């Protein structure tokens, strides 16, 4: 049953809620599984961008969380100062923040080509601190409100839980984006060039392909994915300067478990870890912040390259 969004905004009317049967344990469990899947879609989108950047540029992009936050802020600015709604923000914010990413790559990251991973990690970590600091200075730490778009207000009663339509949209939308990105990199000619360029840039350049430009655009794509996740998360979470910092460590764990640089690995692990975290919140909530890292330790003990990673 679909319940139309009513007044006040964001709080749908739900006539059948009070008459509903008390959910039994199995129903509560299904609800946790679904909620886990929703969180997993954020993990997947973010770790996908990280995997793309690591796979193609060999850079451990610690600024990913800050760029995700910039995506959310970008949506907020577009709405507040430009009157541009959520749907346009879904397109514009990734383009704008992706452009900023390209600027970063051109002015700073490109000089790190061929150097140890550590340099990229330190540079991007520093960048993340600066970006977050600037935002925090001007907007405080508690965040700014961003409403759910009218079309996606309200929710559906699934019998075992009340599913906000917006969350359902997030799952479907991120699945589509993830699969499209995977297809682009693994199945198209452009993707083949990219993969070849990371294996042997000199040879690919000899074929007349502009490798540096391709790498710049790839970084822009990864950053755009982070910004897209930021726009998706803005109506659910507060638009906060530290929203990325809180998430980035978990996302890194996802990438490590999935296998650094593996596209499909990060997508699957992202969704799976969301679900595992959701279940932990149900059975033993106190451990929900640490379960991901416990898993990471276990996976690395058994398979140091991650679940789908290849030994280099």
């Amino acid at each position, binding site marked *: 049953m679909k*319940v139309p969004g*009513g007044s*006040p*905004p*964001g*709080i*749908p*009317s*739900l006539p059948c*809620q*009070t008459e509903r049967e*008390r*959910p039994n344990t199995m129903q*509560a469990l299904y*609800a*946790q599984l679904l*909620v*886990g899947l*929703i*969180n997993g879609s954020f993990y997947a989108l973010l770790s996908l961008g990280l995997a793309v950047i690591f796979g193609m540029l060999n850079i451990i992009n610690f600024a990913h969380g800050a760029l995700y936050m910039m995506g959310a802020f970008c949506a907020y600015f577009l709405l507040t100062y430009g009157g541009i709604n959520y749907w346009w923000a879904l397109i514009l914010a990734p383009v704008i923040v992706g452009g900023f990413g390209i600027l970063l790559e051109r002015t700073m990251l490109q000089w790190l080509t061929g150097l140890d991973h550590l340099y990229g990690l330190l540079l991007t970590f520093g960048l993340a601190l600066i970006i977050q600091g600037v935002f*925090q*200075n*001007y*907007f*405080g*730490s*508690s*965040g*700014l*409100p961003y*409403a*759910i778009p009218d079309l996606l207000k309200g*929710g559906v009663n699934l019998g075992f*839980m*009340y599913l*906000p339509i*917006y*969350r359902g949209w997030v799952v479907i939308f991120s699945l589509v984006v993830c699969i499209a990105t995977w297809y682009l990199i693994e199945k198209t000619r452009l993707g083949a060039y990219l993969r070849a360029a990371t294996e042997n840039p000199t040879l690919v350049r000899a074929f007349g392909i502009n490798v540096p430009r391709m790498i710049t655009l790839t970084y822009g794509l990864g950053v755009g994915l982070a910004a897209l996740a930021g726009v998706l998360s803005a109506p*659910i*979470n*507060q638009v*906060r300067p*530290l*929203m990325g910092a*809180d*998430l980035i460590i978990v996302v890194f764990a996802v990438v490590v478990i999935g296998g650094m640089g593996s596209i499909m690995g990060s997508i699957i692990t992202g969704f799976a870890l969301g679900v595992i975290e*959701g279940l932990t*919140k*149900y059975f033993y*909530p*106190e451990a*929900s*912040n640490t379960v991901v890292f416990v898993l990471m330790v276990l996976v690395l003990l058994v398979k140091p390259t991650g679940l789908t990673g290849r030994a280099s």
Partner: protein
Amino acid sequence: MNKRISALLLGTALVLGAVTGASAQTMDKNVKIGSLSDQSSLYADVGGPGSTLAAQMAVEDSGLTKKGWNIEVITGDHQNKPDVGSNIARQWYDVDKVDVIVDVPNSGVALAVNNVTKEKNKIFINSGAATSDLTNAQCTPNTVHWTYDTYNLAHGTGGALVKAGGDSWFFLTADYAFGAALERDTTAVVKAEGGKVLGGVKHPLNTSDFSSFLLQAQASKAKIIGLANAGGDTTNSIKQAAEFGIVAGGQKLAALLLFISDVNALGLNVAQGLNFTETFYWDLNDQTRSFGKRFSERMKNKQMPTMVHAGVYAGVLHYLKVLEKEGGNSHDGAKIVAAMKAMPTDDPLFGKGTIEPNGRKIHPAYLFEVKKPSESKGPWDYYKLVSTIPADKAFTPLDKSTCPLLKK
């Protein structure tokens, strides 16, 4: 040989004793105030840079610097970690010669700083932490708890909601000292008023996703979902509760601790109708409005003061007043705090009040309701006053306090 060593030790002890004894008796006009807070995480808007500003404004308004006093305010970030907080406190007291630490949100950190302060015989004027343990089992002669506490929140909000028919509760509790104290104190009020607690769930501090916890609260069928958390945890819970249709489904949210910065972050659309207890609001009277305006103009993000900022301002002002009356700074923490307790308080933000022997500052509290968007006339015009809880009813009665200082 042994004799020589013991003579040496005795000599050193005598010299040290003479030095510390002498310094305890010297009065000078130097004061160092340490504003210790969460500068970058979920409580940074509640305390943080605003608390440092409030302390500076109190120093300026005291007029002491014009009279030749040398007063300095320094800032520290405890990162919500008790070990980091107590290390900074130790360093400040031992090396930087800090006289008084103010603010310290996060009850876990506050309890740690409370111990160090007593050990070093300095002063701790707490504004940001809520645990009522600071003036009960953990009370010390060196601590004043200024703004609010879990007893006060539990009775203000919890009591009012149970009386209005909310007789079954489920708690969403932040998993550290503060959450535990707030849940404990509210449970006591709910039971005393004839209500019952159906259950609860403890969540880690600084959680961004509350949907799993909210689903459990929803399944409990409790009439009231008590949010025993603060800052970003509370705003996320409220926002996501709206998304999951919890309020629309007939359950009511009780934000046991809510600050004006949280309401601003939520927006009135989501926050409207929430009831909660505070001891300060910038739009209460002419004096609070004037302070709010001066404060907001100097804040980078132009925010209005929270009750924590107000408490830091008033606490520092009272402390400096006492020093001025004494004619200098003796740097003897317990002695100055005793003088602070002896002198009735009177400041522009909280009005007339007192500090009880257990360190509890007493003033009225207010039950507020968040306005509807249509009722708000502009930025930061957020609260409607529902009722005033008089000073003598707002905090733990002295005869119920378990503070060891009272057993004399």
